[in-house]
């Protein structure tokens, strides 16, 4: 049931069949702690090894990560992980290209302003998730559109276009 709702959400935001494409030949598995449920995608042959662990193993070891982190379920919404975004890039058209200056600011946790926008599809709607890529087409994070894409041209340069949800600067900020 949970997987169905995650698939629905990802496909709804990024296009039909995207979740299947992300999985490739792998399978999704969940790890839960007190606050969150994290989903990973792993090779089928790992399932025996890591999922069906007996009590003897879990008494000594806590499984913390396996394969590729797909994302986290929190407050009934699924948040894609930074690790999976580069895979998503080849499967979706929800891509906002930003200038080098905008890209740098984004990796410091800033959101995307009109002056940084290089291009994006005009059919994207307010609230929709978009991958943020630099002019070298490297994925640097994910954002939520603050307005319909077709309205962006009417904005002043300093106006918000997309709100930063996660960026690769987190890898560095997280470690202090």
């Amino acid at each position, binding site marked *: 049931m949970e997987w169905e709702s995650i698939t629905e959400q990802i496909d709804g935001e990024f296009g039909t069949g995207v979740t299947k494409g992300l999985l490739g030949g792998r399978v999704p598995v969940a790890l839960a702690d007190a606050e969150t449920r994290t989903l990973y995608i792993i090779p089928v042959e790992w399932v025996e090894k890591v999922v069906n662990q007996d009590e003897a193993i879990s008494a000594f*070891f*806590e499984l*913390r*990560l396996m394969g*590729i*982190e797909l994302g986290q379920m929190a407050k009934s919404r699924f948040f894609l992980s930074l690790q999976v975004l580069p895979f998503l890039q080849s499967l979706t058209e929800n891509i906002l290209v930003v200038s080098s200056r905008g890209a740098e600011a984004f990796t410091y946790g800033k959101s995307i302003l009109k002056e940084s926008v290089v291009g994006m599809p005009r059919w994207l709607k307010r609230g929709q998730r978009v991958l943020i890529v630099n002019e070298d087409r490297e994925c*640097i994070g994910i954002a939520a559109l603050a307005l319909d894409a077709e309205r962006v041209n009417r904005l002043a340069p300093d106006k918000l276009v997309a709100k930063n949800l996660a960026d*690769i600067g987190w*890898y*560095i900020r997280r470690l202090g």
Partner: protein
Amino acid sequence: MVSDGHMSRRQIRDRAKVLAQEYGYLQYMIERYLSLWGEEETLRFLEACEEPVRTSIRMNTLKASVEQTAARLNEKGVDLQQVEWLECGFYADFHGFSPGALLEHMLGHYYVQGVPSMTVVQALDPQPHETVLDLAAAPGGKTTHLAQMMNNTGSVIAIEQDRLRVASLQSNVMRCGVENAIVYRGDARKIEHLELDPDRILLDAPCSGEGLIPLDSSRKTSKTMADVRFCATREDELLDAAVRALKPGGVLVYSTCSIAPEENEYVVDEILGRHPELRIVPIDLDFGDPGYTNPFGVSLNDSLRLARRFLPHNHGTEGFFICKMEKESESD
């Protein structure tokens, strides 16, 4: 000076007192260096530890080719010089910029890592499709290097006990595009419970860090001989667990960032005595000095000369010990 050119105990004590004051060390450390190396080499060591260690990076080919990353870094004014025995290892002069702040670092194109740490993984030589264990794995430099050498195939089982350090391990695994890692939090001394049959094991053991003085001068005074002994006991337990878990015919690399023979050659010598199925094998890379076979006048297994040591005064790096071993296969 006694007749054979060695210093007497009293001479060592007196000289150590002076040098300890001059260079800011605990006296017992200098006494040990004088006993191990004599005065001339001790002085070279002390001087070398005052010099900064060159920054080095490993190009992460899971994210971009060596050539691509080198070109991008050159464009940003970073000077690179390849480490002779490491295809993906480079000394990097960032000219004052933080190596972690560049976009290429965030994208996982490179990992800031000491030359000895990169060499450890190269010495283990993991192969695609194998099962490889990385014990005491955080912050993930070696885990991500293993995955890189295995081209994201097989599996790298990374174990780390410290909760906070597990978080940095996870973060680096994700940043570097590693897809074949399984990370466990737990005590690596209990690995037999995981019931794995690893082809190779990397044990870069938690140690007293005496080799890190060039990077962290607080180590000159932060550890006593009791700390070194405590670490040696834990290292012995970890290595013993690793040997027991290793598949027959499997390969194991034991390393520490300590220069103390008690944490290195003594530990391996003890393990070799306890596990006749284990033998030291040569490392097919041209680096470092041979391991010691007679430190402090204690005679150890002669094959320890096949182990390698990085020393600040001989190699311009932090101090490190690397020993590669093989477990007899069932047909042997």
